[in-house]
């Protein structure tokens, strides 16, 4: 269950242009956090920027009572976070949301992430039990390639691509992934990234008849399931319903999600 707590910054490291890895100390969170969950952080001191920013957990160190968040500076809220230094305190609610299904029956796993969507997948990868782990990561350009060494350490095979071909495979990583799907059989796909990419992966999962879990993003209000703003269309039998990313998600089975447009 999510709690409101004060977390203390241990480290704030730049991974790439405008992309940061924030390490925070909080024993109360690390003991109960699960793979796929997020925290909702207050990103201002005054009242100008009211809403908390939801950020996925990218790593949790239960032994040392610390957790890591990866984020990209996109506006004032994330800029505020990027300026945090060792010892600074943060007002945090979490861990929030549901988790990835880490069923040990999955013997061959594909992980596919795009851009900063790779962060929650790193936490996932580190917590997968013994199975064959193939990881596919896509970035815009070489300068945005992040976490390569970390992913390499925990995966069996790592494939990296850039949209412009400045590093690794040239083009959308989903296209490379599709080629691999034609040769390999996976028991499950886990994905996180831009909505269009997730839509494409959901279609692939359907075509190849593979279980697939995706972590969704939506603009949030309260982050605790009360305000109902972070709606996503979820199939309910032959109908659909607006479920909410903060409480019912962020992780959904790809075949239950309806992507509009």
């Amino acid at each position: 269950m999510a709690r409101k707590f004060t977390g203390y910054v241990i480290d704030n490291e730049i991974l790439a242009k405008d992309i940061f890895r924030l390490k925070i100390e909080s024993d109360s969170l690390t003991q109960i956090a699960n793979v796929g969950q997020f925290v909702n952080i207050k990103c201002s001191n005054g009242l100008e920027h009211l809403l908390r920013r939801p950020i996925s957990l990218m790593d949790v160190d239960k032994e040392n009572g610390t957790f890591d968040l990866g984020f990209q500076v996109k506006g004032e809220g994330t800029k505020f976070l990027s300026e945090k230094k060792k010892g600074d305190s943060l007002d945090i609610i979490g861990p929030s949301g549901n988790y990835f299904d880490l069923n040990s029956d999955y013997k061959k796993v594909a992980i596919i992430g795009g851009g900063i969507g790779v962060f929650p997948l790193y936490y996932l990868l580190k917590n997968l039990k013994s199975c064959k782990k193939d990881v596919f990561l896509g970035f815009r350009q070489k300068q945005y390639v992040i976490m390569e060494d970390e992913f390499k350490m925990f995966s069996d095979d790592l494939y990296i691509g850039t949209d412009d071909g400045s590093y690794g495979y040239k083009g959308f990583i989903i296209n490379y992934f599709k080629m691999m799907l034609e040769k390999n059989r996976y028991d499950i796909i886990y994905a996180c990234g831009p909505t269009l990419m997730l839509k494409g992966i959901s279609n692939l999962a359907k075509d190849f008849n593979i279980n697939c879990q995706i972590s969704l993003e939506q603009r949030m209000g309260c982050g605790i399931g009360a305000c109902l703003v972070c709606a996503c269309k979820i199939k309910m039998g032959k109908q659909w319903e607006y479920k909410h990313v903060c409480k019912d998600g962020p992780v959904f089975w790809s075949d239950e999600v309806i992507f509009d447009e």
Partner: protein
Amino acid sequence: MSNVKLETEICGVKFKNPVIAASGTFGFGKEFGDFIDLNLLGGISVKGITVEKRDGNPPPRIAETPSGILNSVGLQNPGLDKFIKKEIPFLNNFDTKTIVNISGNLIEDYCIIAEKLSSEKIDMLELNVSCPNVKKGCLQFGNSANGIYDIVSKVKKYCKQPLIVKLTPNVTDIKEIALSAQEAGADAISLINTLLGMAIDINTKKPILKNNFGGLSGPAIKPIALRMTYEVANSVNIPVIGMGGIVSGDDAIEFLLAGASAVMVGTYNFVTPTACIDVLHEIESYLENKGYNSIHDIIGKLELNYEKGGCEI
């Protein structure tokens, strides 16, 4: 324990304190039970209920604006029957007043809800004639004196519990609307609902909200809310509940001074799930520090600089 008396009464309903969670910002209370003791609240105004279940508007439904947020949820709710079956029993577990916020496309919808709720264990009804996020109903009843008279007088016939009418600020003269609601039989007024607004993404050249427009709330609207609360409280003789951008005890005190018998905390619940309780404790400290015995020592005790405001609307 404090000796300050916080009890306030709104048309016969006794609230243990003047802090009520505002409709649409507190769900049905459950989610906040993880963060606060719901028994401490003066009351809870639940998420707006319609006769049938509503899906709400497509996302994005929220945008952050300076000191405020725009929302366009569109009254997503489980519908009256499910609310009665699932949510009222939950709310009855707590020693706090339950206010049911009701909405509809047609006046008949409001009447159906009021009638069905008349046998339920709830304390008050709040007539939502001010939601800017739905195509039909709501705001169209609330933005004219005639419209509000029509709906309030008709719905009132079906109400067993006292009826609060929640006003929209999207009008020229809110005093006229409030007086009309009073004349039609409203037992109390709550105000303000959100101000209709817009935010644009300059990269996509589209509104951030899928619904294009949304309701603005938060500290950005507090001065407007306060002025309107003052105007209405000084025009009608039924109790007024003030809201709009309250984030602290100081903010709440301003509304009480302006004439509100109670306040509702809304948007700030999203920022801090303990907001209502924080506001309550701060009100208590203010009263103690100033040496007041009771909340009634400050309600309506605003001292104007001049008898008439500088620019009366």
